[in-house]
């Protein structure tokens, strides 16, 4: 009986890989544990081992072939005396396939990109400096850090695996090579200590960029972020500021469970003295990160692991920036307002397309970009026009960014509201591991559509 060797998923968010090298050839006998190929992903190059035994009957891809989807058969091993079965196009494991679809927003965006970018992103289109080439969010962040490090010697980066390893999510790729180990520093796994150290360096006049491998680990250091970084300017009567950027992926990735999937947007947005940014595209990631690095205050810069591979055009001017505190009207509309940020922008856009197609509802989408200070003016103006509001975010519901927006809108635009504000949040539970439960936990397009119907009184 022959067995297919499938393109493996080498990380929770990997969707495709390149076959950089075969380590076996047709006719070889392989045992479980033998190395069979080198696979290159956007994060790393890794060797793949055989898990079954047999003779290599066929290699289905040539060396150097790129973008092979996870779970696609790449080789067949088995008994040479048996007839090779016709290879199946459908992956064997349906659950894994489901995971690929549900968690791979990148793929979904790719397929709908033309619709979304062309019809829903007028701001980017108005940008005469827009690059013809599309780059990933990961590259946009990396390029911006490099550009700012070239401009100002006081800017340096520290964090776990940012240097030699090139970044746990490859956001700092190449920075060590360009700027050297004095400005790109690998830290031990001691968030409390190195965060305090970076805050001290910022007090003394440097401009650190501190990468948390994920914001989950910032809880280890949260005293230094809040009690030291955020409050010292005030406590010193304006003498000592703290120009630091805390950045890294925030929120859920893919099936990494409760301790590695928390969204911290409302936690940090609650703190005076901090600014909080949550980019949603390569374009605004670039403009907003530049503003964050230049800002004289501590900035929490909440990225998203699933968005790192999202591609889009950017403005390559090394002085291009997007001001902190300004929301972007991602799509204009007249029937209801969807206020969102970070990864939920993508789901909100999908929901908006379906709302138009299925219910003829024209939704206006506001991408907050900055959570603190909040651009209340843009929100209120939109609500005054559409008279209906839903908020969409990945955070837990209690005291979320949406809660504050609901408060502001009922206070300042009460007479304009035609229906109660509805918040779409993650479930009020720790993040479960299981794929099916994780999907249930996170806000989905259908949840957004249901909320939109509710504020529009559509049954």
């Amino acid at each position: 009986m022959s067995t297919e060797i499938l393109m493996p998923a080498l990380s929770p968010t990997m969707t495709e890989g390149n076959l950089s090298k075969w380590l076996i050839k047709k006719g070889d006998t392989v045992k479980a544990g033998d190395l069979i190929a080198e696979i290159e992903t956007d994060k790393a190059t890794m060797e793949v081992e055989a898990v079954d035994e047999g003779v290599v009957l066929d290699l289905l891809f040539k060396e150097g072939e790129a973008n092979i989807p996870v779970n696609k058969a790449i080789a067949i091993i088995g008994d040479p005396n048996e007839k090779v079965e016709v290879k199946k196009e459908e992956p064997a494991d349906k659950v894994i396939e489901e995971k690929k679809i549900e968690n791979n927003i990148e793929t979904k965006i790719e397929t709908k990109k033309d619709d979304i970018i062309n019809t829903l992103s007028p701001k980017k289109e108005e940008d005469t400096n827009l690059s013809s080439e599309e780059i990933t969010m990961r590259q946009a962040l990396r390029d911006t850090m490099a550009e700012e490090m070239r401009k100002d010697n006081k800017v340096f980066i520290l964090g776990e695996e940012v240097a030699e390893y090139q970044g746990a999510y490859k956001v700092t790729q190449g920075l060590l090579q360009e700027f050297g180990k004095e400005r790109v520093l690998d830290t031990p796994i001691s968030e409390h200590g190195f965060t305090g150290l970076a805050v001290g360096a910022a007090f003394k006049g440097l401009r650190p960029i501190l990468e948390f491998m994920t914001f989950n680990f910032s809880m280890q250091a949260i005293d230094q972020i809040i009690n030291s970084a955020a409050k010292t300017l005030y406590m010193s009567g304006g003498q000592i500021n703290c120009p630091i950027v805390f950045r890294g992926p925030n929120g859920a990735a893919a099936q990494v469970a409760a301790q590695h999937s928390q969204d911290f947007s409302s936690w940090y947005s609650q703190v005076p003295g901090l600014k909080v940014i949550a980019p949603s595209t390569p374009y605004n990631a670039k403009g907003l990160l530049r503003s964050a690095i230049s800002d004289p205050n501590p900035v929490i810069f909440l990225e998203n692991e699933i968005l790192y591979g999202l591609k889009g055009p950017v403005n390559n001017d090394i002085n291009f920036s997007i001001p902190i505190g300004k929301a972007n009207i991602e799509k204009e509309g007249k029937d209801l307002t969807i206020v969102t940020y970070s990864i939920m922008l993508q789901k909100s856009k999908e929901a908006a397309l379906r709302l138009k197609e299925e219910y003829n509802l024209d939704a206006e989408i506001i991408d907050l970009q900055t959570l603190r200070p909040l651009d209340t003016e843009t929100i209120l103006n939109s609500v005054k026009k559409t008279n209906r509001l839903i908020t969409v975010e990945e955070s837990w519901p209690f005291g979320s960014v949406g809660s504050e927006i609901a408060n502001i809108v009922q206070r300042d635009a009460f007479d304009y509201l035609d229906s109660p504000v509805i918040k779409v949040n993650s479930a009020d539970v720790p993040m479960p591991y299981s794929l099916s439960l994780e999907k249930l936990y996170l806000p989905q397009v259908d949840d957004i559509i249901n909320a939109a119907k509710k504020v529009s009184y559509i049954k």
Partner: protein
Amino acid sequence: MKKLQKADYIKMYSFMLKIRRFEERAAQLYGMGKIGGFCHLYIGQEAVVVGILMTIDKNDSVVTTYRDHGHMIARGLDPKRIMAELTGREDGYSAGKGGSMHMFSKENNFYGGHGIVGAQVPIGTGIAFTHKYNREKNICRTYIGDGAMNNGQVFEAFNLAALWKLPVLYIIENNKYGMGTSVDRAAAGLDLYKRGEAFGIPGEKVDGMNVFSVIEAADKAGKYVREGNGPYIIEVQTYRYRGHSMSDPAKYRTKEELDNYKQTDPIEIVKAEILKKKIATNDEIEKINKDTLEEIKNAAEFATTSPFPKNSELYTDVYL
């Protein structure tokens, strides 16, 4: 070690006395309700900060705990404005927004005044990182209370400082009690200076009631750090005469223990040395005493007549 000049003896005596008189006055104002909140006095510990001060370069940085009044005075800052911060007035060093525990002077490289036990240790390590990053020859002196020596981030900072050979001098002010808990009830292993050994950080124990011992140790340690050898720890054995804070009656220790320490009062030790070496006469000492008392009285007067911050100040200094 550089030889102490006559003027140095007078300087030490004056500063230690100024700290003592300041703290006594602060206690009085606290009792009168002019100072609120937490107020941690430095009485008994004066030789520590003044001894360190004698070895400091003005471009060196300092960061300390919430027991910081004496540190501000030793840094040469104006007692009037320090006291005005304690009374929460607009002339205070933090414009009345920091209070006793949160005082800073950037122009004097004094980086606080930190209210969270242990938090100043990574911060001081980061300031030292900056000196090294900027290729400056300066060092950061980071004070640590004995209580903080059981706090995890201190060891994270030690590891980073040793790993990156940062120019930081850690000074443990061991005053025997973390609030009401004696060191032997809190620390497994009483030689706190040895806690750097695992990281290869040298350390030593010093008599903190005797300013001359402090100077000798600080001078040696300061040179070691300044020469690029990485961090160094000195554990200064000292004693606070008062409770942890103003609201602490210090019932956890005996009167005999306190009296015993008062026998080795740090200010008396300097005074005796000055008289023995005939650096000043009794009359000249008396004049310093009188001038100091006067200066602190004026500081209290200033601090209780300076206006409270304007209401509009509530919303300033949140962001730069």
